[in-house]
């Protein structure tokens, strides 16, 4: 029930039309419309809309936000992971979310209570993002994009092996691997995996333009080049967003093996939806088991779920003194896996 969710959010947050509002900081968390003061968990488009007057985020997120919104003329305050911000009797700090470069969870506390807002997160380690943290908190606002038990992803090592193997096999058979991966996060992570395997990559412009931020954070991709410098040659793999799977750019590659990298790739139907040959469920979100694990590790006794299968996850979260409620009545599935 939404009423429970509202109760669980107190005293730190209120659900408003623009998004979750943190009263003590007079700011919205990942608001869906431009606001005077915003705290951004990460730079994906559905969390970081253009036009905020003033925003708080990690240095990487601020840099990525500027890169993606070159005409933005607001102001930003950089908050490093762990750096405290105190206002109106409450404290706030950003902690790593493990989702994409710069991604943060937002932890609130007073002397008596605490709340962790996850933004988007994953528990599995990755090459291009620092490991996630699970700071003990009394309340947890949990993103449940994959909050159904069918979403159980294979171990990271297996997924990486499959990515490398399918690229090598395609190249050996004279085909160009085309990896459908979201432009911020998945694309660079995939390029890093392939770089380590010695496979050169060609990146779509949307992913390529973010590389300076990745380089600044220590991810070098010496075997990557921009698609602008020419289509992939024999032996190279193309990394491009899922939305481009039916564009002339991809179709021009006559001998191609299209690999969809996303949690949604666990559905056979995504093969025909994206015209893909190979489905590899590599996600930047927590799967069902990891969602439960995060709840346990944080040790929250009140959980508010949002995004994806929020209602189902809240219903399935076992008792043990944990109460859960979905934030939104409306279930939404994002078109991609940002």
């Amino acid at each position, binding site marked *: 029930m939404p009423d429970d969710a509202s109760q669980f959010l107190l005293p730190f947050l209120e659900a408003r039309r623009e998004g979750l509002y943190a009263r003590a900081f007079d700011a919205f968390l990942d608001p869906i419309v431009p606001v005077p003061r915003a705290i951004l968990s990460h730079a994906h488009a559905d969390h970081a809309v253009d036009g905020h007057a003033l925003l708080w985020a990690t240095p990487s997120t601020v840099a990525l936000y500027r890169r993606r919104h070159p005409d933005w003329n607001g102001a930003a305050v950089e908050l490093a992971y762990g750096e405290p911000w105190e206002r109106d009797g409450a404290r706030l700090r950003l902690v790593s979310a493990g989702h994409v470069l710069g991604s943060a969870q937002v932890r609130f506390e007073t002397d008596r209570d605490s709340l962790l807002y996850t933004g988007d997160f994953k528990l599995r380690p990755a090459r291009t993002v620092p490991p996630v943290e699970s700071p003990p908190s009394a309340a947890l606002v949990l993103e449940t994009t994959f909050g159904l*038990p069918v979403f*159980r992803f294979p171990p990271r090592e297996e997924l990486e092996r499959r990515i490398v193997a399918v690229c090598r096999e395609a190249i050996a058979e004279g085909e160009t691997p085309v990896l459908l991966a979201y432009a911020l996060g998945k694309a660079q992570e995939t390029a890093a995996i392939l770089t380590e395997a010695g496979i050169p990559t060609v990146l779509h412009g949307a992913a390529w333009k973010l590389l300076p931020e990745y380089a600044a954070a220590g991810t070098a991709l010496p075997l990557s080049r921009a698609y602008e410098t020419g289509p992939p040659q024999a032996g190279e793999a193309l990394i491009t967003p899922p939305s481009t799977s039916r564009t002339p750019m991809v179709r021009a590659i006559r001998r191609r093996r299209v690999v969809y990298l996303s949690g949604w790739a666990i559905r*056979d139907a995504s093969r*025909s*939806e994206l015209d893909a040959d190979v489905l590899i469920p590599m996600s930047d979100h927590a799967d069902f088991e990891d969602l439960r694990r995060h709840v346990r590790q944080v040790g929250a006794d009140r959980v508010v779920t949002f995004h994806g299968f929020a209602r*189902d996850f809240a*219903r399935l979260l076992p008792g043990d003194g944990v109460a859960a409620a979905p934030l939104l009545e409306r279930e939404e*599935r994002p*078109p991609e896996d940002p």
Partner: protein
Amino acid sequence: MTPYRLLAETLESVAGTRGKLAKIERLARALSALENGELELAARFLSGSPFAEHEETTTSVGWATVARAAASVTGWDEETLHACAVAIGDLGEAVSLLSAAPSGEGMTIGQADAFFRGLSASRTAAEKRRLLEEMLRRSSPVEAKYLLKTLSGGLRIGADLTTVEEAIAEAFGRNREAVARAHRDCGDIGETAVAASENRLEQIRFRLFHPIAFMLASPIETAEEVADELPEFAVEDKFDGIRAHAHKEGGRVALFSRTLDEVTPQFPEIAAALAALEGTFLLDGEIVAWQRERPASFFKLQRRLGRKSPEEALLAEVPAAFIAYDCLATGERPLFEAPWRERRSELERIAAGRGLRISEVFSAESPAALEDLFERARARGNEGLMLKRRDSAYQAGKRGRAWRKWKKALATLDVVVTAVEQGHGKRAGMLSDYTFAVKDGERFVNIGKAYSGLTDEEIRRMGAEFRKITVGRYGPVRAVEPRVVIEVAFDTLQRSSRHKSGFALRFPRIVRVRTDKGVADIATLEEVEQLYARLTGEAQQTPD
């Protein structure tokens, strides 16, 4: 004793490759390793059918029974199973994702057959559920996935019966046409596979009383499209009923519908009339509602559909008739390969003076003459025209250019989408079925539902939009904010209690998304009333 797992893994690998040749090659590899009984079953299972097509056997397992069994085996409640099936787009796939690590010892191909037959023989849902639970306990995820997909009637792996026919030809080095012919004549892909492996396809003789795929027609939009071919075409009215094959030998008659289901008990008067004729034959034709010595509208016939044994009163009120327009076998002799011209004269021979209704055949020398025939067909209350090349064979199951159909949309309406649902088959997981409404004052009243005629790309884009404006979910149906305006074409407009508007559209199809229009621009119920009055008025004025 080959494990069913090998077939399941073959199906999984066929699903995972796009190329038609690669699919055929993988199916062929699985088939060529088998013989006799196992081969027979494997060919059926690989084509997604638990039984031979000619068997009047069904597993009759409902979604709810499968969900209940899966709930008990996986430990997840039914509500979660339902949510998972909707999220994944397929129940079998969802169950396999919920199944724990490879568990039981699996099944042999023969045991899978026994499982399907056990389901068919069991009379109660409880018994079916027990069999399902037992199967799920002993199956690995990939086996469970394909056994359940087989039960749901669609494997969705991008391979159809024709692909399996080609795989059989490839596996045993036989001619593709010979395999297809044998399959059509015996109505069992399994028997066909065994005959192919033993190099005796030619010994398969045509048999009556098993469903045979229908030859289909490609649509045309204008008379000019076929101007050059006109002299080759025989022209018939296109009847507004349901297509059926009538098998007849002695006093025995069987009617099969387009879905290859037997519908004989639904139409006792047709069965009786055909049984009274002399001879043995297989006819293709149309079941129509029959009133005032001519076919009545499909809406009349609809009252007869789905009723296993219609009552006397309904039979009297809505009598049905069979109009034959093709003859596919007479005596023991199949006529599929014979040209239409020859099949037609057989049909006329059977009909001569013996109370079998057959279509009237016209010719049109020019597009103008074809237009004229079209108008006359419409004036007789029929849908449009069928054009059949006089020199063409009967290509069962194929939609070719030897047959053409010409209908014209009656009109189009701008309507607003009020609910969406996931499609089936290739469009599983996509929100492709739309329910739509017209305006009645400030309210929206539904007037129809259509499977999207949009491209996959458009459906995907619209799907993302619909997910954003979802206001409620009722099982698989999402109610959406009435915002998206579409233009639908339809063939007729009829009063109906099925939708709140009090009207129903026949053959509604989505012409385009009207991003240029808002909800304020959609049709009103009043306009629909006026359109109806105009159409029925016109219909009364047309000469009989």
